């Protein structure tokens, strides 16, 4: 069953399109990572899913409920943690927990205690005096303690040191594993996402370029490393599924999307003068950088491989 269904979703800030015809689904219990460059629309998409923006076109549903018309009962099952989100920071953490607990019938006091200990948070400390990392941990604690069905996280790792990130990741994983909580996460931290996510969506300029499971992604996207014998075919036209070209002398590296088992053969056919062809599963980071690089080339009107030829 899908926890989240988004169909033909479009959203604009005035005349500026932030999201354009976005469609995807998130299976229940999945950890879905939204990646994309700055300004791609990741935060806006998460805000729509959290019910914070409702003047969009298309459909966005969470467990069958319209995200634009969440009832208080719907909200009991949604956690939202975002960079820059304001907690009532005049409160002490224990006050905030006491304030929130009555709203949520599923609030788990023992989980709250456990998370507080794990995150090494002082319950008697005023939230405004927390460091940035502690602040995000407190936000995560408040989002996890009600044992939500869906947890939406927007750039939760920004500016955190490795230790704190690790704590957060472990917190997320345990939440996901324990309750089958569906998590949608946006982050620039590709390495963390790769470790966490089982589904990934790539947003670029408001358009969802890709949405699939990590397994499929790894299967489909290959990192290709080719060394050519001479310069003859260096600028040869390549299929559009081959992206993120990097050249160094006669060595070419790129990421190719291909479903079959004949990927290596295809590359060799394309570059008959290759002295070496190496293929392996592309990492999420390589995929992301390849996408970024291609986008940059288009934006700067640099000749792509095809155009150059």
């Amino acid at each position, binding site marked *: 069953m899908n926890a989240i269904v988004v169909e033909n979703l479009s959203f604009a800030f005035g005349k500026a399109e932030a999201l354009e015809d976005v469609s995807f689904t998130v299976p229940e219990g999945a950890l879905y990572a939204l990646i994309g460059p700055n300004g791609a629309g990741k935060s806006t998409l998460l805000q729509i899913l959290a019910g914070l923006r409702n003047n969009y076109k298309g459909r966005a549903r969470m467990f069958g409920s319209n995200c634009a018309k969440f009832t208080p009962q719907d909200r009991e099952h949604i956690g939202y943690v975002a960079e820059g989100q304001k907690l009532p920071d005049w409160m002490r953490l224990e006050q905030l927990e006491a304030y929130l607990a*009555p*709203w949520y019938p599923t609030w788990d006091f023992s989980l709250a205690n456990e998370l507080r200990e794990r995150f090494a948070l002082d319950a008697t400390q005023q939230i405004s005096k927390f460091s940035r990392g502690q602040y995000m941990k407190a936000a995560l604690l408040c989002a996890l303690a009600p044992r939500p069905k869906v947890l939406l996280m927007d750039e939760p790792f920004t500016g955190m040191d490795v230790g704190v990130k690790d704590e957060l990741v472990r917190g997320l994983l345990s939440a996901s594993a324990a309750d089958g909580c569906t998590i949608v996460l946006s982050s620039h931290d590709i390495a963390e996402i790769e470790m966490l996510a089982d589904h990934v969506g790539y947003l670029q300029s408001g358009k969802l370029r890709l949405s699939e499971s990590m397994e499929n992604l790894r299967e489909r996207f290959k990192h290709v490393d080719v060394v050519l014998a001479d310069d003859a075919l260096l600028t040869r036209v390549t299929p559009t599924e081959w992206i993120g070209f990097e050249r160094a002398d006669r060595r070419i590296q790129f990421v190719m999307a291909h479903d079959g088992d004949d990927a290596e053969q295809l590359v060799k056919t394309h570059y008959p003068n290759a002295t070496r062809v190496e293929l392996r599963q592309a990492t999420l980071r390589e995929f992301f950088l390849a996408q970024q690089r291609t986008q940059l080339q288009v934006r700067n009107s640099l000749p792509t491989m095809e155009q150059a030829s």
Partner: protein
Amino acid sequence: MNAVAEILHILRKDLVRARWLLMGFALLVSFSAWRSAVSRPWMPIEPCVRDCSTRVTTLDGILAVVVFAVALMVAASLVQSDSTQRFNSFWKLQPVRTTSVFGAKLASLLLTVVSVILLAQFAAAWAMGIYPSDAAHIILAYARFFVVCVACASVCAAITSNLRGFLLSAVAILVGTALFWIVWGAVRGDNAAPVPPTGTIFAASIATSVLLLFWLFRIRTPRGVARIAAMALTFTVIVGATYSDMISYSVNEFAQWGGPEVKRGKPADLSISAHRDGRALTVVLTSPAPAANHRLLLVDAVAQIVTPSGRAMPLSFTVNVPGKNNSPHVTKETFVVDSAVAPLLRAGTPAVITSGSPQPNFPSRREVVAFDNYVDAVSSNGVKTRTAILKLIAAVEMPDSVLQLLSTRGARITVSAFIEDQSLETLFTLPASPATHHLKWGTTVSIAKFAKPAIKGIELEAVTGESTRNPIFAGVADQVHEYEVTSYDSTYMFIPTVSDVQYSLTRNFSADTLHLMKWQLGIGAPAMVLPSALFTGTVVKLVPFGKVSDDEFSDWLKNGQLVLNIWEYSSHSLAHAESGVVQQNRT
């Protein structure tokens, strides 16, 4: 959680969050009220004392403005603590009903801002010795005005995200209102449109503001058009409030003027009928009875004959009260009715309508028709007036000019007047023996002596003396000295000389009353007792109305007690009545 529990939960959070702000606000309001109480004495009896305004310091003026502005800012802070403007406000992510957030905001505004201000007003009124009825009236009027201001401020707060934005929007609305009135004044000139009743405007203002606030929370994140619409509606509410006479003043501000002068009451339901009988015009004015212990006065009555073609002729509406009338229920002797009381309260009192203005010598007094549907219920400490319907009927002989106009087809009589409602308050009672009674507002009243026949009566002495502790009384003493006690501006201080005070002796065992009247007045000169302390003595001699035998009067003195009642201004309203077509009686 159910809705009430949610409201209380959010309310508790808001109060904890704003605790220091609210404490500071309460201190500021208390300080302001305390200053009002100690620096501006309230003269508890009408008429007002305008000279008190000179005692208002710049600090008091600034303080009043600061308290008002801070109150609105506290209101804004409470509303903005759960902002509608930040799209990701914390409350919007929680499973809370928007109605609960709205309800909590309303509750916090009422419990803190409004109640703190009004409690301080009550405290100041009490400290200043304002009569409870007056205090309630002033404070209710002020509460009405203040609540509308708080409601409008809350709307401004809801469409802005911080204090700066709130101040900007509030200033914009106030400047807009001022500009509107400037433009409106230029366009309309003196042709002011009729003002709807204050109650209607208040209800409309409150309903609009509260519904607007509810709607702003309901849509969670109002933007663009919603904000402009909210601003426009708030502007309309403020314009409406300033157009009506809803703008009211706090107890402190009233104190600086001395008293509540304008209190608009329920519109008086005055009706009129008129008919001709030969040369005599009979006009019947009817009003519902005032409430128990109240009387209605007809003030500035303007009577006209109006024809359908628009021709009009003024009729001088005067009341002539002969010196002696019967008041059989009290003294069984003649009873002088205060002329101001006559027209409506004392229906049955002879009155006359004359034509022309002024026309004191119109020879029609013998045509006056008197009615006797007036009933006094005697009580141990005063007179309670209860009548079913009060009527005043006057019949006059008309000069030719009036007759000619009245002969016009469709001629009617119209009467416009202010109806002043007064209530009877017992000032105090004294045992009918030489004894002393101390009044709280600085005057000591005592029965000085009982005069012997043939000028039998009671000499009542009032002494005012105050030390430098309250310098206003020194000023009052000077004023009394300067204007004499009978002058309108000084009578407030010397209770026995106030024209509206009624004196009577009452006997509890028989529950009856002997009305007394002022016979003689004497004023003592201000004297210095202590440095800067003055006192002034006034002696009033009271004698019974009509013929009372020595034995009877001695019996009253032995068993009765002196009661001083005063007619207190309660409210007034404008009444307009138009008769049907004046018909000729066929005899």
